C-alpha cells in the first residue's frame, strides 16, 4: 500500500539526491569500519596479509590484561549502576508527578556531566590533593586513607557516576509499565507484596533491566575520555591502548590498534546479542 506510484524511470533523477548521503556514509561510517577490519589483518608494514596482529594480542599478557580490565570494569560499573538505578528509580516513582519530574530533571542534568569535566571534578574532590581527601585526613578520618582515585576503585567510582543517570533514565519508564491495577489484582487474588514482585513486577521489568545493562556495559567498554583524563596511560584499559597505538606521539602500530578495535567491537556486538537473547528468553510475549 505504501508503494507510491512512480515508475523506475521517474525515480532516477530523484536518486541523484541520495548521492551526498551515500558519500558521507561510506566515507565516514562504513569506510572507516571496513578499513579498521582490513587493517587488522595486515602486518606492521601495512601490506602483507596475516593474522599476526591477532596472534600478538592473544599471546600478549599486556593486551589480554587490558581486555580483561575493560571487561571487568564494565561489568562492575554496569552492575552497580543498575542495582542503584533499579532501587532509586522505584523510589522516585513513589513521589507525586511534579516531584518525580524534578528528580528526573536533576538526574537528566547530571547525565551530561561526563568525560573530561567529570574526571576533573573528581580529581579536585578526591585526587591526591583533593578537597575531601585533605579534609578527611585533617579530620583524622581514615576513610580515604587507602583510597587512590587513579586506580581500579577510583575508575569504578567515576564510571558508576556517569552510568547512574543513564541507567535511571532508561529504567524509570519501565516502572510506568507496571500498572497499579496489577498490584491490586494480585493482592485481591491473595498474593503478598513479595509474590507480586517475583511473579509480575520483576518479569515485566526484566527486559528493561537487561536492555539497560547491555547499554551500560557497552557504554563503559567504549568510554575513553573519562579514563584518559583520569589515569592517562597509567592504567591498562582497552580503549586507552587502542588510542595509544593509533594516535600517540611515541610508537604507532595502527594494525595492532585495529585488531584491538575489532576485539572491542566484538564485545559490543556480544552485549547486544546477549540482550536480544535474554529478551527472547524472559519475555516470550514480546516478538
Amino acid at each position, binding site marked *: 500500500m505504501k508503494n507510491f506510484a512512480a515508475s523506475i524511470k521517474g525515480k532516477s533523477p530523484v536518486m541523484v539526491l541520495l548521492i551526498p548521503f551515500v558519500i558521507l556514509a561510506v566515507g565516514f561510517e562504513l569506510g572507516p569500519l571496513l578499513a*579498521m577490519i582490513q587493517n587488522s589483518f595486515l602486518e606492521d608494514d601495512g601490506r602483507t596479509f596475516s593474522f599476526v596482529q591477532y596472534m600478538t594480542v592473544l599471546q600478549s599478557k599486556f593486551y589480554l590484561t587490558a581486555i580483561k580490565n575493560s571487561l571487568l570494569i564494565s561489568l562492575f560499573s554496569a552492575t552497580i549502576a543498575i542495582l*542503584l538505578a533499579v532501587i532509586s528509580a522505584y523510589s522516585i516513582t513513589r513521589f507525586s508527578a511534579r516531584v518525580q519530574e524534578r528528580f528526573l530533571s536533576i538526574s537528566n542534568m547530571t547525565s551530561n556531566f561526563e568525560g*573530561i569535566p567529570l574526571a576533573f571534578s573528581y580529581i579536585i574532590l578526591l585526587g591526591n590533593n583533593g578537597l575531601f581527601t585533605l579534609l578527611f585526613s585533617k579530620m583524622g578520618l581514615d576513610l580515604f586513607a587507602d583510597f587512590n582515585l587513579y586506580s581500579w576503585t577510583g575508575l569504578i567510582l567515576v564510571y558508576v557516576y556517569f552510568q*547512574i543517570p*543513564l541507567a535511571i533514565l532508561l529504567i524509570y519508564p519501565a516502572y510506568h509499565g507496571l500498572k497499579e491495577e496489577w498490584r491490586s489484582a494480585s493482592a485481591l487474588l491473595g498474593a503478598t507484596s513479595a509474590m507480586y514482585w517475583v511473579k509480575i513486577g520483576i518479569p515485566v521489568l526484566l527486559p528493561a533491566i537487561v536492555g539497560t545493562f547491555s547499554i551500560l556495559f557497552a557504554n563503559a567498554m567504549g568510554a575513553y575520555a573519562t579514563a584518559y583524563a583520569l589515569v592517562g596511560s597509567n592504567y591498562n584499559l582497552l580503549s586507552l591502548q587502542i*588510542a595509544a597505538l593509533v594516535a600517540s606521539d611515541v610508537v604507532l602500530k595502527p594494525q595492532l590498534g585495529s585488531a584491538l578495535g575489532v576485539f572491542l567491537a566484538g564485545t559490543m556486538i556480544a552485549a*547486544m546479542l546477549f*540482550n536480544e537473547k535474554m529478551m527472547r528468553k524472559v519475555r516470550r510475549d514480546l516478538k
Partner: protein
Amino acid sequence: MKKGMIWHKSVVTLLILYLLIPLVGTFLFSVAVEWDSSILPESLTLQWYHELFQDPRFYDALNRTLFIIAMTVALSLAIMIPTIFLVVVYFPEWERFLQGLAMLPYGIPPIIGAVGLLKIYSSGNLSLVGTPWILIGAYFVIIMPFMYQGIRNSLRTVNAIELIQTAELLGATRRKAFIKVILPNILPGVIVSILLSFAMLFGEFTLANLLVGGRYETIQIYLYQKFEKSGHLTSAIVITYYLIILLLTWGVFKITHARNLSIFISQKLKGIGRIIASAILRRSYTVHVREGKR
C-alpha cells in the same frame, strides 16, 4: 506506607546528593580564592571567571567548537532531511537499510571510529587528519542517529506520505509539496534533534583529541590543556561549559514538553532498535513523566 516513604525519601536524597556533590564542589572551587582544608571555602571571588573571560584562547576554542558544530548540523540537515524523505516516500523498500545505517553509530564507540578514520585520512590525497573537516565528517556520523530519529518521527507524526499525496492530488508538484507542506511541518520536530546534537558534540572529546588534537583546539581540548595548570581556572571553564550544555538541554526540555516527540518509544521497536531508541532519549527523557502518567 509512612515507613515506606521514609525509605524512599532517604534513597532519593542520597542519590541526589551523590549526583550533585561533584557539580557543586566544582562550582564552589571555581569561586574560591583558596580552599584546602575547610568544609566551605573561606573567601569567594570571581577572579577565575574574570581570568577566563580575558583569555583569547578560550574564545578561539569556543568559536572553533561552535563553527564545527554549526557546520556539522547544517550539513546533516541538508543531507538527512531530503534523504530520509525520499526513502520514506519513494523507496520504502530501502527504509530498513537506511535505518540500520543511521543507527549503527550508536553501536560504535567513537574510539573505534577513530581507528578507521585515522587509517583512511592520515595520508595520501585525503589527508584530513588535523583539520576541522575530518571532525565535521566524523560528527556527521555521530549525530546521525539523533537526526534520523528526529526527522523520521517528525515525518511519521505529520503523516508525511498522505500529506504529500494529498498535495499532489491538489495539483502541487513534488518539489512544491515538499517545500510548502513537508518542510514547515517537520522542522519543529527536528529542532530537538538539533539541540541534542549540539549538546552532544559540545562534550565530544575522543574524536577531537585523536583526530585533531592541539592542531585545531576545540573547547574540550582547551579544557584538557588547562587541566594541569590551575584547578580554580579549570573549574571556571567546567562550570561555564556546563552552563552552556544546560542551556541547550533546557531548550530540549521545553520543546519536548510542548510537543510530543517521543512517540517512537511506544512504537514497538525490536531488540537493538528499542535499546538504541531508548538510549537516544537519555537526554530528553523527562518527557516520560507526563507521558507515563497518562
